[in-house]
């Protein structure tokens, strides 16, 4: 009897607490997206072929990473990734190591802008998005990696490969809250030569340059793709030209710089490299 009355008191109190927290956690992005008339919502998309690896204890990192790598034609199992991203004393995986391990397996990690629209755009471009979430609360965090594979505008849900659920459907505002608590962190794994939907010059340059340090031989396709997209952007042209130079293709390295200088005649690093390359070609 006394237990019952205790429960009776506790439940309304908890509900009240829950409502307070709901009131605190605004979801501006979902609101903005869902307030559009239904014909102006992004179209539905679902990458049904993205594989699923139900996670084992504490190992959502390896599971999520294997999910995006396998979809990108890297034959790797979650078990093999444990030694690449798992930290025993932390019982989890750090974001930095997820990016580094993506690189180890010959894919370029590209962190996308923290917007729901960016996620949906990547899905449209065929890139599953690895997201970091805090499924719990800021004060009681429950950090988690999952992979967004679809968007359902009718149900207003995202579809995730998450934990032990193959098709985890989450209402946009709920996802936004869990994602917001993890600072809207998300990335895609690119096969060199593919551009992300949200490609931006300096981020792309950094992503490829970091990748090149580990895989110089594979980065050519990535520079070329960037150069095709932004032929007039100095850093991209420089990166591509330097890569060609390293491969011994001096003539093409020079012509990329000439092209750049025809647009930006005063760009000093290009002048300097071009004159060095011409000297070398003459000698």
């Amino acid at each position, binding site marked *: 009897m006394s237990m019952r009355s205790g429960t009776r008191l506790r439940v309304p109190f*908890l*509900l009240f*607490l*829950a*409502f307070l*927290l*709901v009131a605190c*956690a605004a979801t501006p992005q979902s609101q903005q997206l869902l307030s559009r008339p239904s014909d102006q919502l992004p179209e539905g998309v679902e990458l049904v072929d993205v594989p699923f690896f139900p996670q084992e204890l*504490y*190992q*959502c*990192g390896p599971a999520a990473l294997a999910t995006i790598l396998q979809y990108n034609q890297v034959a790797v199992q979650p078990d093999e990734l444990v*030694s*690449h991203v*798992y*930290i*025993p*004393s*932390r*019982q*989890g*995986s*750090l*974001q*930095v*190591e997820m*990016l*580094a*391990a993506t690189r*180890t397996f010959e894919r370029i990690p590209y962190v996308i802008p923290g917007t729901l629209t960016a996620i949906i755009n990547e899905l449209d471009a065929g890139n599953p998005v690895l997201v970091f*979430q*805090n*499924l*719990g*609360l800021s004060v*009681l*965090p*429950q*950090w*988690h*990696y999952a992979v967004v594979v679809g968007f359902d505008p009718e149900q207003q849900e995202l579809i995730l490969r998450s934990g032990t659920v193959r098709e*985890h459907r*989450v209402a946009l*505002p*709920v996802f936004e*809250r869990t994602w917001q608590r*993890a600072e809207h962190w998300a990335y895609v794994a690119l096969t060199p030569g593919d551009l992300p939907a949200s490609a931006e010059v300096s981020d792309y*340059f*950094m992503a490829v*340059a*970091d990748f*090149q340090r580990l895989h110089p031989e594979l980065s050519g396709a990535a520079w070329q793709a960037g150069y095709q997209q932004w032929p007039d952007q100095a*850093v991209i042209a420089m*990166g591509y030209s*330097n890569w060609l130079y390293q491969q011994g293709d001096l003539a093409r390295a020079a012509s990329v710089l000439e092209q750049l200088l025809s647009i930006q005649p005063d760009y000093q*690093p290009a002048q*300097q*490299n071009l004159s*060095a*390359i011409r000297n070398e070609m003459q000698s």
Partner: protein
Amino acid sequence: MKIRTLKSVTTWMLATVFAFGAMFQQAYAAPQTMVTTEQLMQEMQVADQRASVNNFLSRADVQAQLAARGVDAADAQARVNAMSQAELAALSAQIDELPAGEGLLETVLFLLVIFMLLDIAGVTDIFPGL
């Protein structure tokens, strides 16, 4: 003591920034050397005020930090080798503060009840069935 440490850190950081500056000038001034992609990267990082000191971080240091947290020594070396300078800096500075995604709950029953309610309310997303 504290102030002295702070001073020496500041001096060190300033020295680093100047060293970088000097390096670029030198690279650009010497007529027949190439401007490398690494230099462009460092320049962008300095411009961003990201990780201006990090080039002096040794990979071995971060490797040791990972090993101390239970990662196999050979694995730690391979893992550190795949990191960018900015990633190394982030890890080195905050390896114990950065959130680690684990995705399973270790909470007492009372908290489970709260989380179930919060899940139903759409605040959290711990129980996929709710």
